[in-house]
């Protein structure tokens, strides 16, 4: 065959296969991108473009969240940037193929003639190859826990594609350099190096090598294109929109409950918001979420990663309703809403939001275990989950000196929203009274709502009982209207979260750690002694991850003269105690390993640390219990932040 015939054939084959591959790609991607997304519900995600562009630069450009795992993060950084730079070489390959019949040595004008670019592409090709080999090693040899459940073979297959694409590119370039056809050969040292391996071969052989490498290169590229819409590699297409259109609302603010035909909650694919469908298509099965999930850790059937994969599966191959077939009730009730999954995800996939939406459906259907049902019934009737009369809410105030003020009768500066646990739990009465005494001692003008206070509703909302949540908001707002105060302060991070982010038209809301921090900084609090303890501090989910308050409590601890030794999982990586998301109101029968016990062991392993400091009443309850059940009573004592403050005053 003459070169001419060959080149004509080449153009035809390239054209046809390019059309075929594009066709398959569209045929596979269309239902996902267009049909399903069009059928879904709207998500308000436009606006704040400055913030969004910045996000693109930091999280896509710099791949920030991926670097939590340094080696894989580096590898993916190169694969991503490699992909971007080498996409031009792919374009080059396609065009030179299409135009082979007129110009076999076609090179893209300007871009294809720019030396420095060729150098970057050449070096990056090598980096990609190394990164891919590392990726294979990670999947096949190391096989970390977070990959459990992910489609490993799919991942390895695509890695092989990329490796093949890159190696074939280098070989092809190498041949062309050997043949003297490359004007930028000086800018392609890696290709040259590769070519030098077979530089001894005849010119004819070089041509064959070049063409074979070309076909392999193009073939695998087009094959990859057809594979893109399947499984996790669709993220190549959707990752930029995913990061660009991420949720910029305060983390602790849930969207209102969707209703369909008078029924609240989501159970079918077309009831989801487009963002949630996009998330399902975008999930890369990396497992960073699964790694941090306390529910997964405890042996409950939930994994945020598997949740996304199941959603995706149901969207592509609907063999039943999303709920309860693809995603079961047990999975949905397992969530502690700690937000670690959303925090870790490099693509800002939202896991908590769809879980709550699906829980809303379960509540609408009345599908929940009896313990939760009783808790909700109690919350509805008595305004607290303990089933005690609302009249008993302020019983703890008896005997507190000076007497706690009633904010409904006297004007105070701070309204202290005490919260259910601090008010009703027998094990916490001590701490609550101490808090009142400390507040008085530091000269705070404060009062409480007494029996007009109701559960703030944070966890009621996250359990999916939106109607009950609205009722509680109503009752609390009525109580606020009757009281005279300037700022709300609360000792419960869950309360703090919902009052601050979800209650309408609220003034200033502070967590007591923030208030103490402010007062220490302004000199209003003076400690009489330095405690000198070595302590560790546990960031509550709803104070830390949800609302970014990490430093204020630490400053308060340090101000009391204590030294903080951080646990390995600290700040936004703090491991949830397991009480959130209404879990504290649910049956524990499926829990094999308690997250609270894991956390206590983590603290007990720190040398010299004997005090575990918390800033949340549920944490106090869970960890005190865990210290007992792990047999650490002699090594660790659990104290509330207020205990340190009281001691140091």
């Amino acid at each position, binding site marked *: 065959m003459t070169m001419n015939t060959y080149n004509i054939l080449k153009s035809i084959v390239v054209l046809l296969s390019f059309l075929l591959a594009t066709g398959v790609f569209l045929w596979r991607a269309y239902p996902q991108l267009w049909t399903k997304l069009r059928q879904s519900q709207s998500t308000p995600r436009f606006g704040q473009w400055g913030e969004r562009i910045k996000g693109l630069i930091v999280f896509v450009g710099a791949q920030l969240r991926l670097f939590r795992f340094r080696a894989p993060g580096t590898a993916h950084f190169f694969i991503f940037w490699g992909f971007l730079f080498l996409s031009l070489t792919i374009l080059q390959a396609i065009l030179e193929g299409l135009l082979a019949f007129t110009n076999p040595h076609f090179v893209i004008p300007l871009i294809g003639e720019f030396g420095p670019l060729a150098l970057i592409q050449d070096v990056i090709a090598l980096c990609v190859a190394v990164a891919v080999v590392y990726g294979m090693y990670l999947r096949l040899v190391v096989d970390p826990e977070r990959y459990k459940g992910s489609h490993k073979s799919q991942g390895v297959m695509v890695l092989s594609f990329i490796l093949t694409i890159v190696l074939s590119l280098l070989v092809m370039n190498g041949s062309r350099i050997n043949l003297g056809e490359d004007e930028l050969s000086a800018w392609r040292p890696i290709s040259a190096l590769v070519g030098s391996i077979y530089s001894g071969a005849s010119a004819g052989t070089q041509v064959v090598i070049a063409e074979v490498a070309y076909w392999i290169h193009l073939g695998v590229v087009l094959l990859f294109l057809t594979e893109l819409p399947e499984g996790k590699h669709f993220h190549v297409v959707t990752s930029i929109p995913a990061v660009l259109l991420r949720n910029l609302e305060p983390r602790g603010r849930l969207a209102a409950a969707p209703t369909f035909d008078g029924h*609240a909650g989501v159970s079918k694919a077309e009831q989801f918001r487009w963002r949630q469908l996009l998330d399902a298509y975008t999930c890369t099965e990396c497992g960073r979420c699964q790694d941090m999930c306390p529910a997964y850790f405890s042996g409950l059937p939930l994994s945020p990663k598997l949740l996304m994969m199941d959603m995706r599966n149901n969207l592509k191959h609907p063999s039943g309703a999303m709920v309860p077939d693809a995603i079961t009730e047990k999975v949905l009730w397992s969530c502690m809403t700690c937000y670690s999954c959303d925090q870790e995800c490099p693509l800002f996939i939202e896991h908590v939001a769809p879980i709550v939406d699906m829980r809303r459906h379960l*509540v609408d259907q009345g599908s929940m275990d009896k313990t939760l049902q009783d808790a909700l019934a109690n919350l509805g009737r008595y305004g607290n989950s303990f089933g005690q*009369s609302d009249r008993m809410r302020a019983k703890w105030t008896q005997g507190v000196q000076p007497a706690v003020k009633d904010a409904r009768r006297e004007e105070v500066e701070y309204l202290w929203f005490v919260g259910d646990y601090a008010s009703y739990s027998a094990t916490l009465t001590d701490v609550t009274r101490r808090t009142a005494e400390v507040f008085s001692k530091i000269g705070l003008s404060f009062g409480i709502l007494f029996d007009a206070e109701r559960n703030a509703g944070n966890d009621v909302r996250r359990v999916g009982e*939106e109607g009950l949540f609205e009722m509680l908001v109503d009752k609390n707002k009525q109580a606020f209207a009757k009281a005279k105060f300037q700022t709300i302060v609360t000792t419960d991070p869950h309360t703090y979260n919902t009052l601050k982010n979800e209650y309408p038209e609220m003034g200033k809301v502070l967590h007591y750690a923030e208030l103490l921090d402010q007062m220490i900084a302004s000199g209003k609090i003076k400690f009489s002694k330095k405690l000198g303890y070595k302590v560790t501090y546990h960031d509550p989910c709803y104070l830390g991850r949800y609302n970014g308050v990490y430093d204020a409590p630490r400053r308060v601890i340090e101000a009391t003269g204590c030294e903080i030794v951080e646990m390995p999982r600290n700040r936004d990586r703090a491991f949830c105690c397991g009480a959130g998301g209404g879990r504290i109101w649910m049956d524990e029968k499926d829990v094999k390993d308690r997250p609270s016990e894991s956390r206590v062991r983590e603290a007990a392993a720190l040398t010299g640390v004997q005090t575990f400091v918390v800033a949340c009443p549920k944490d106090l309850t869970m960890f005190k219990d865990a210290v007992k059940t792990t047999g650490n009573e002699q090594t660790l004592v659990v104290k509330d932040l207020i205990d340190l403050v009281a001691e140091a005053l």
Partner: protein
Amino acid sequence: MKIAVPVKFVPDLVEELTIDSSGAALDTAWLRLIINEFDDHAVEQAVILKERGGGEVAVLSAEADGVDDFLFTTAAKGADKLVKLTGDFSAVNNHALGKAFAEAIKTIQPDLVLTGVQAHNDLDGSLGPLLAEYLGMPFVGYVSGVTVSGDKVIARKEYSGGLVAEVEVKLPAVLGIQASETPPRYVAYSKIRQVMGTAKIDEQAAEGLDAASGVTVSRMFQPESAERAAMLEGSPEDVSDKLIGIFKEAGAL
């Protein structure tokens, strides 16, 4: 199948109970009323029967604080007819209540009447057997399962010691429900609010409420602490040691 469920609201034991100045009755100032738990089970059982075999469920209650919300909740569960008896129920005992319910139920002409087997404030007998007599229907109590078969029902009757009997009763009949086959279902708040917009409560004046055949209480009091337990104090270790001593003395250790 038409099912009628008369219910009673009783003092909520979560609240503190105090005796009033007469010394013979509960102080109503601090009293809160709540649905009799067994009546809640009766409603659930009625709805279960309706779901299984079709029909209509009517729930009836004397007026009291919280009754409206409760009736709407039963509608959200599946009740078709809501009846509230109006009148002065302050001095009313179960005999009078039974007569009032009987009048209202006669107009419904149900095949089956389900009501809680007892209520914790019953003094003159429980509502079910009295109502059955006023309606001229047979009564079986302590029922934890109901199967309808033609013009009869098979009721699962519980005795002490775990013994159960399957009792066949000719309809129409009154059954005293101990427990519904599955625990009372949860109804989301949003659903109850929805129903409030569509369901209607039928108010019927209760005629001639008379408290005859009643029981007169001359004294009401909280049980004496004369027989109260000897309380053990101290740390868990102290109390454990004391208990071990007690067990040994009893010959159990």
